[in-house]
């Protein structure tokens, strides 16, 4: 990939005159001066392989052309049904109201299904041409070859530090492999840059970024979207620096993490949405301490030397990130109460297994005062909400959640006014609780919510107490992203005879703002960690030098199963975001960001007596045993380098 960026490389798109689709440099502070002042400099090159979302359900499209009214309905396993609708208005030359796109409950999305694909248009075009329904389902091989790939970066990173481990500056040359086309503009390169510093108080940064096109399947944002790669480079570099200085990896982070009292913390650069990059809330040192405590870090460090004497090589690794979540500008939500008093919540946010049906029902039920089971959530149907964006970038809880809360509030206000007329009381005295409407202090006045709707329908005798459409739509605007954060700690055991890495334990201490539903939050964290473990230890979308895909089946592309995953302990730290009324932050991607860095740090820690340096993933047994063998050949006898008491 880096060779493709060189001037003499054969051109993929000759009309461009280069294979570098995106190139920029960016700086904050004075890096040159910081490097001059440094006591020590750490330089290393890290490689993050190409690995992908791999939803269990491949893509699929069904299209039906209705020649009676000239309308098209298409069911599409997309994360972005309103975007597909917009695309189809152009492709089919039809107005939006003649095109209904329904994204049913998806069997996984992960970003893979947030891209536009040719089949999104081709299947509807075929339905129009044939005047009959057309169905297309991708098989696994097609998915692996044709659906968006992800990751694959190289970081040539340098840290300038003081003797005590204080990091003064970071310099990073970054190469990203885009695959054959640049589908996503600056999204991946800029995400990579905006998340490099993470929780560290580093005031000086210089980056030089090149995003390169190659003869491979195009890449797209996948759960983390540049963050796992950049966090891998930074957290690996921090560990290498710690070893170079003889400082414990936990301690060097204590010295460099931004403190809670420094928030809001302004980086002096814009985020991807053009707004200033300012951390809004959180407590990174608290997350670090919580994760270390839950992992039993101190006990581990006490036990580690005696285990090594018995030939048991265990290591522990830390990684922390701060993630801009919930990019705007909005999500649409329509809330209505029907004749039975039941609630329908419709939103442009598509659910792909993360439990929108539960979380959004909670938001609406709490805001309105009805039982949870009275709420039905419909996601990703363009006929139910006029404008929407979709589910990606850890955005739905913030953008859709707040729109749902706003719209529910508007519906409730109208219900209160109608109930006040019906119950002959002042609106401020109306209570709605558990689906019952009553006058405050007069329990006997209680009527079911349905009664208020029914009383609003005009009869022959009289008009209703209000117009009966208890419905509101909201497009809550977010000022910019909100910053979720976490510290992950991984414990591994390495079999130094076979190179096999066993993940013994995994801890996540995270802040996603106000937690709507702890079980769903844990599930999201677990799923993300599983995909991060895949990147750390198993998954690689390998190509040979001729551009031939070598990992075209799930026997070659290894997704971790429950058998490969350890117990995952989750510590919830709730620092509500000041940037939205619910105080929530995005969560979907976070779990996947830190595992490659945390696990690689743990493997290097386990193998510290050999002096191994881990610079690439996945850490399959072959790579690990070769690292050990290379280190042994270099130094003949293992010695304890950087071993900590």
């Amino acid at each position, binding site marked *: 990939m880096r060779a493709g960026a060189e001037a003499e490389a054969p051109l993929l798109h000759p009309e461009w005159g280069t294979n570098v689709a995106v190139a920029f440099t960016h700086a904050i502070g004075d890096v040159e001066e910081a490097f001059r002042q440094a006591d020590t400099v750490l330089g290393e090159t890290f490689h993050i392989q190409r690995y992908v979302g791999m939803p269990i359900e491949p893509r699929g499209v069904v299209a039906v052309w209705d020649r009676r009214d000239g309308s098209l309905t298409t069911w599409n396993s997309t994360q972005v049904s309103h975007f597909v609708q917009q695309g189809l208005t152009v492709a089919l030359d039809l107005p939006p109201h003649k095109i209904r796109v329904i994204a049913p409950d998806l069997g996984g999305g992960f970003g893979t299904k947030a891209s536009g694909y040719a089949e999104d248009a081709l299947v509807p075009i075929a339905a129009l041409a044939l005047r009959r329904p057309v169905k297309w389902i991708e*098989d696994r*091989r097609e998915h692996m070859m044709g659906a968006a790939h992800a990751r694959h970066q190289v970081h040539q990173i340098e840290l300038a530090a003081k003797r005590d481990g204080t990091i003064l500056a970071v310099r990073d040359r970054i190469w990203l492999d885009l695959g054959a086309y640049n589908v996503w503009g600056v999204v991946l390169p800029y995400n990579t840059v905006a998340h490099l510093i993470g929780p560290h108080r580093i005031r000086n940064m210089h980056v030089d970024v090149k995003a390169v096109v190659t003869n491979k399947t195009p890449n797209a944002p996948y759960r983390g979207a540049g963050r796992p790669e950049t966090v891998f480079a930074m957290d690996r570099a921090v560990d290498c620096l710690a070893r170079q200085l003889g400082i414990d990896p936990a301690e060097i982070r204590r010295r460099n993490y931004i403190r809670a009292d420094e928030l809001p913390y302004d980086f002096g650069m814009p985020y991807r949405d053009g707004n200033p990059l300012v951390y809004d809330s959180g407590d990174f040192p608290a997350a670090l301490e919580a994760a270390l405590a839950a992992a039993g870090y101190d006990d581990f460090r006490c036990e580690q030397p005696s285990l090594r004497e018995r030939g048991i090589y265990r290591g522990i690794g830390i990684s922390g990130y701060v993630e801009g979540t919930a990019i705007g500008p909005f999500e649409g939500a329509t809330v209505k109460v029907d004749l039975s008093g039941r609630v329908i919540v419709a939103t442009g946010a598509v659910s792909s297994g993360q439990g929108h049906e539960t979380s959004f029902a909670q938001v609406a039920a709490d805001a309105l005062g009805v039982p949870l089971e009275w709420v039905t959530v419909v996601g990703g149907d363009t006929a139910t909400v006029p404008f929407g964006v979709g589910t990606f970038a850890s955005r739905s809880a913030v953008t859709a959640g707040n729109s749902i809360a706003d719209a529910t509030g508007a519906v409730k206000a109208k219900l209160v006014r109608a109930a006040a007329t019906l119950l002959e009381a002042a609106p401020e005295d109306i209570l709605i609780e558990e689906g019952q409407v009553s006058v405050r202090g007069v329990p006997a006045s209680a009527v079911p919510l349905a009664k208020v709707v029914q009383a609003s329908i005009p009869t022959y005798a009289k008009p209703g107490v209000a117009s009966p459409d208890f419905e509101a739509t909201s497009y809550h605007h977010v000022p910019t992203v909100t910053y979720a954060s976490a510290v992950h700690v991984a414990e591994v055991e390495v079999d130094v*005879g*076979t*190179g*096999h890495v066993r993940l013994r334990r995994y801890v996540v201490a995270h802040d996603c703002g106000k937690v709507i539903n702890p079980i769903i939050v844990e599930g999201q964290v677990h799923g993300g960690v599983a995909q991060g473990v895949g990147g750390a230890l*198993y998954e*690689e979308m*390998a190509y040979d030098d001729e551009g031939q895909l*070598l*990992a075209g*089946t799930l*026997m*070659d592309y*290894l997704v*971790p*199963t429950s*058998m*490969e995953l350890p117990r995952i302990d989750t510590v919830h730290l709730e620092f509500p975001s000041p940037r939205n009324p619910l105080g929530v932050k995005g969560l979907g991607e976070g779990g996947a960001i830190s595992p490659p860095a945390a696990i690689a740090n743990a493997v290097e820690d386990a193998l510290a007596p050999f002096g191994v340096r881990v610079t690439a993933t996945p850490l*399959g*047994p*072959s790579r690990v*045993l*070769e690292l050990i*063998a290379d280190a042994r050949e270099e130094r003949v006898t293992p010695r304890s380098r950087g071993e900590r008491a």
Partner: protein
Amino acid sequence: VKPAPFEYHDPRTLDEALTVLGARGDDAKVLAGGQSLLPMLNLRLARPAAIVDLNRVAGLDGLAVSGGVLHLGALVRQRALERWAATECPLIAAVLRFIGHAAIRNRGTVAGSVSHADPAAELPALFVGLDGAAVVRSHARTREIAAHELYRGPLMTALEADEIVVETRWSLPAPGTGWGVHEVSRRHGDFALVGAIALVTRAGDAVDRARIAIFGAGPTPLRASGAEKALAGARATRDTIVEAARLAAADLEPDSDIHASARYRRMAARTLVERALADAVALAGGGL
């Protein structure tokens, strides 16, 4: 799930099956458990014109021991052997537990794996390690092929196109034989990157006879004959084992693939042979 079109035959007798196979020869493939063939069909890596499904042929699922030899009909499922072996031959049970997952072993047959000849599979290595033999029939004749003559290369055997393995025979280890089996796979249930099976009998402090079978480290399962010779009569010490493992690995000529380099396979084979031998020597009694 979309194989290229094929003719499907489901004979009720072995003669019928052999007749179809005799007529179609190279164009036909025999289907038993289907755990390897069906994925290959679905990926169109195999495009046979005809499939001869043995599953309805009666009388091929016998499991019997006579004179220290285990006789397994062509349709004996891996799980059936595993259940039998749990009490009768723990080595075989231990080897089988490395094969995929229980659901795969419920369907997969012993003879199917033996004749599919995947060099990374456990059963062909055990077959070679236990000096097994395959009873093979065609319409014209019945013959026996010794395990060490069966394997010619990856997925290649001495079987002719019109032949079916109707029975596999396994010489059960004599009482007192120690054994060990170790493998490395990327994930639980994956094919081994490399693996080793060892059998050891002892005469006092010395090794009487050692057998070492290695899989995943060459085009076929291999016996480490150099290491076996070095062990015969040698004192059963840690040094002897380490040296034997070194010898076993030195003879290997493995390939590289996306999961492991050739260098890795040699290094890991050495570790695994060492561990399998250490287990076998310990189980054979006397300790190290």
